[in-house]
Structure formats: structure tokens, C-alpha cells
């Protein structure tokens, strides 16, 4: 009886999981249709959209302005200077981390090619599983080192510029619906930056990054 109940509960969980995935896929289908992602937050409807040409120009101009401003500040270090300082103070050698990432990337690619060959030559499942597990392990190692590296360089000038661009991009993209008319959710970047609703900001930033390619 208990086993039967257990099975039923597993089936219910599987079904719930399937429904949730189907819902997410149908949401994604809607998001893909045009360049807009709508979402509801605290009973208000928001959306993020792709930037217009003039907004892209505005962002480009502000990026250059911010870059120049950051360069003038001698307390803010470029990534290369940060690396040098970290090495001199015996904290960490970022170049060695890069070398390790490079070595693991070569190994990752090589193992992928072996798995690809094994699949095309119809090798046994055991061989395929072994390569699959090696690839997972290598990928985890690469991710760990990348996270470690990013945490050391998060205050670099390049990273600060990237954060600024991302923030400005989100501010420009975010709109809310007022009486069936879409208007910019925040009047100024300052208002957006001072927004206490972290959930809204994070959600908007996440969706903005789904839509736009951006770099520094």
C-alpha cells in the first residue's frame, strides 16, 4: 500500500515537473515571437525590450564617458594592473589560473572529440558514459577556476564598466504598463539605481540580458 502511495506521489511529482516545463516552454515561445519579454511584478505589468537605434547610440556615448571617467580615477585599477598587484602581494597568480583554464579547455575539447568519435562508431554505452562523466568533471573544474578568477577581478575597471553598462541597459529597456500605455519604468538612471525593490531590478536585468548582446 505504502509502495503504491509512493509511486503515486512520484508520478504526481513527475507530472507537476512536466507541467512546469511545458509552461516555461510556452512562455519562452511567446518571448521568442518578438523582442519583448513581459512579466508581472507586485500586480504591475512590466516588460523589457530591445533598444532603439537612438538608445543604442545613447548607451554607446555614455559607455565612453564612463570609461574615460574611470580611467581618470587612479584608485581604480585596470585588470592587468590588478593581476600584477595580486601577484606581487603573493595573493594569487591570475596568469597561472588562465594557463590552467587553457589546459583544461584543450582536455575538454579532446575528450569531446573522443566521445563524438565513439558515438559515430557506435561504441558501447559504458565507454560513452565514461567520457560523459570525464567531460562533466573537466567542465566543473573550469567553472570553479573561472568563478575564482572573477571574484579576484570583480573590482577591476573593466568589470565596473561592464556593471555600469548592464545597469544602464536595464534602465533603458525596462517599461511598465500605465493605463494600457507602455512608459519607461524609471524616469532617470538615478531613480533606477536607487530603487529598493531588488527583486524587480534583478528580474529586469536577467530578462534584459536574454535579449541583448553587450560587451564593454
Amino acid at each position, binding site marked *: 500500500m505504502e509502495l503504491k502511495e509512493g509511486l503515486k506521489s512520484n508520478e504526481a511529482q513527475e507530472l507537476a515537473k512536466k507541467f512546469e*516545463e511545458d509552461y*516555461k*516552454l510556452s512562455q*519562452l*515561445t511567446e*518571448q*521568442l*515571437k*518578438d*523582442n519583448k519579454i513581459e512579466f508581472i511584478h507586485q500586480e504591475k505589468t512590466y516588460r523589457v525590450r*530591445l533598444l532603439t537605434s537612438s538608445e543604442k547610440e545613447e548607451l554607446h556615448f555614455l559607455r565612453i564617458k564612463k570609461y574615460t571617467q574611470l580611467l581618470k580615477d587612479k584608485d581604480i585599477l585596470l585588470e592587468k594592473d590588478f593581476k600584477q598587484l595580486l601577484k606581487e602581494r603573493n595573493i594569487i597568480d591570475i596568469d597561472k589560473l588562465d594557463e590552467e583554464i587553457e589546459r583544461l579547455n584543450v582536455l575538454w*575539447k579532446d575528450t*569531446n*572529440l573522443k*566521445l*563524438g*568519435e565513439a*558515438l*559515430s562508431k*557506435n561504441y558501447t*554505452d559504458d565507454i*560513452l558514459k565514461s*567520457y*560523459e562523466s570525464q*567531460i*562533466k568533471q573537466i567542465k566543473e573544474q573550469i567553472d570553479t577556476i573561472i568563478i575564482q578568477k572573477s571574484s579576484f577581478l570583480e573590482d577591476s575597471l573593466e568589470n565596473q564598466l561592464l556593471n555600469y553598462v548592464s545597469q544602464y541597459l536595464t534602465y533603458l529597456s525596462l517599461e511598465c504598463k500605465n493605463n494600457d500605455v507602455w512608459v519607461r519604468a524609471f524616469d532617470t538612471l538615478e531613480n533606477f539605481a536607487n530603487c529598493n525593490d531588488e527583486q524587480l531590478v534583478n528580474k529586469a536585468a536577467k530578462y534584459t*540580458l*536574454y*535579449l*541583448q*548582446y553587450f560587451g564593454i
Partner: protein
Amino acid sequence: MEQLIRKLAKKQYNLNIFSIAKEFPSINLFRNTIDFSRIQMDYLMYLYFYDSLKSDIHLDKVTERVLNSEIYEDAYYMYKNENKKQPKSENKKHDVFLVFDNSRKK
């Protein structure tokens, strides 16, 4: 997000639409026809990816097992592309050299 995009692109219905859209330019996958967003580009890339994988399965170049895991899918695709990069004529020259080399040893 990437996993969701992959799942959506892997669905046979979406692959059918993609195949038809390739043949008939009047059929659009999105409302916009220019200025594609990042998720749209990723989706298109995965449609192309799965279209190519399923075509290889159909041509018996690989079995359906390749679709059992995303790691299998990526690995096979990487292997396939790597093989495309290697010029076939070079291999032939190398083979001729080996035959010549062996005969000299005898």
C-alpha cells in the same frame, strides 16, 4: 535559459517549421525579420544544430543514442565539425607515402 531554448528547438514541431521556413521565405519564425535578439539568435542556432543532428540520424551517420544527453549531442557535433575541417586530400597523400615507405623497408 539555454537548456529551455535547447528543449524548445529539439521539439519536432519546431524543427518542422524551421525546415519549411528554410524553403519558403514568406514563412517567418518571429514577428520581426531583422534586429534579432540574443534568445532569438540562440534559438535559431539550436534549430540548425538539431536539424543537422536529426539529419545525420536519418542518414545513419549516428544512432538515436546521440539524443540521450546534451553532452552527447555537443560532442558529436564538435567531432563532426572537426572532421569537416580536415582536408581529405592530405590523408590520401599520407596513405600513398606510407605504402611507399613500407615497400622500401621490405
